[in-house]
């Protein structure tokens, strides 16, 4: 069955007709061509399909698209519109990826973390990012990048970024 819903993705509202059983992941990739949102496990464990809904990271593979109507959905495409976002720049500077399949999920989860907790300890970073898997094993560099991004985003350092 199809349902017409109004989705707000990266600030743009659009009416789309979605199958009631399609997930937000399906629709973001097929209708919106937002290919930063990736299917890894399909069961909410790996974090490759992370998007922000109302500012909070969720697995888009577990959210029916029709139930995301009228909510603010953000993908990584919205981050780098005016040059790289400081979090993205920190990931680049620390080479915090190898194949980069998991990177969009890490970036968005980091964004949510730093909004909740602008100066996390390494333990807090680990706890918040525990559900994002990097099969290349770049975790140490990701940790460095996240802590560095936190420093760069501190108001006092705004000019340095």
């Amino acid at each position: 069955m199809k349902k017409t819903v109004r989705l707000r993705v990266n600030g743009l509202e659009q009416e789309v007709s979605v199958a009631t059983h399609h997930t937000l992941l399906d629709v973001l990739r097929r209708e919106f061509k937002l290919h930063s949102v990736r299917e890894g496990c399909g069961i909410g464990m790996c974090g490759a399909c992370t998007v922000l809904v109302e500012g909070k990271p969720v697995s888009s593979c577990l959210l029916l698209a029709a139930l995301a109507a009228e909510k603010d959905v953000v993908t990584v495409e919205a981050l780098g519109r005016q040059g790289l976002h400081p979090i993205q720049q920190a990931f680049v500077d620390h080479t915090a990826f190898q194949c980069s399949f998991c990177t969009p999920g890490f970036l968005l989860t980091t964004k949510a973390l730093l909004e909740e907790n602008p100066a996390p300890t390494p333990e807090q970073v680990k706890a918040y990012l525990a559900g994002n898997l990097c099969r290349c094993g770049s975790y140490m560099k990701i940790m460095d990048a996240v802590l560095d991004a936190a420093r760069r985003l501190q108001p006092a350092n705004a000019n340095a970024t």
Partner: protein
Amino acid sequence: MRVFFGMRDIDILEPRSVEEAVAALAQHGDEAKVIAGGTALVLMLKNQLVSPAYLISLGRVPGLDGVTYGAGVGLRLGALASIRQAETSAVVRQHCPTLAETFGKVANVRVRHAATVGGNVSEADYASDPPCVLVALRARAVALSPRGRREIPLTEFFRDFYETALAADELLTEIVVPEQPAGARQSYLKFVTRSSEDRPCIGACAWIDLDEAGVCRELRVTLGAVAGKPQEFAEAEALAAGQRLGPDLIGQVAQYYAEHIDPLSDARGSAWYRRRMAAVFVRRAIEQALGAGGEV
């Protein structure tokens, strides 16, 4: 995972009030499934474990997402409060830190943001964390149907694997955690065997009420993830009443649990392994609740 082969057409209903939601559930009964956060239900749909004609979404139902505390009442967790909300709630942290920590041990931060307290309890998965602790705290589920409102003690709510005391037309509206006695302390240990954010191989909750002299008035121990529902043995708990909880007594209780559970085997551990780990984690949970044991 993304092929919905042979799945029937689903209509999504979005009631705007609790009354509308209850009416929709009464009208469609077996043909309908309630969907809250969807983190469990979407997986069931993907795997065709359920194939409802209607999904009744609670996403637009107001008033069910509060987390509050009332003196004499205790904590009230609205069914639609997210697990993350319960984890970070100042009143839950203040009045029952172990419960807040337990919600914080569920899955990963994405699931905790999307999943609801009511969905976690209603799913009644044998390997969930909060049910074990909520049973030990003697929490109650509030259910609403066209026949009215009733309270179900969580000790009776969980029936078996994915089976609860909720009738097909009942909506879970909140979980009430009663005020705990002044001398009560708890702990919950989640033992994972694969990765930090996995479901538990064993979850062990100890609840101890001590008098001023440090003598145990009452001990409760619930074990999760070993069988279809949280396991609790009154005979073992009774050993502790009126006693000081020393190493021998704690060992006896732990041994009783290990011997009397009928553990299952799954990818997180065999029945043999679970039995051995049950002895270890019951002991550690009691020690931690007493403040005697360190971190695991």
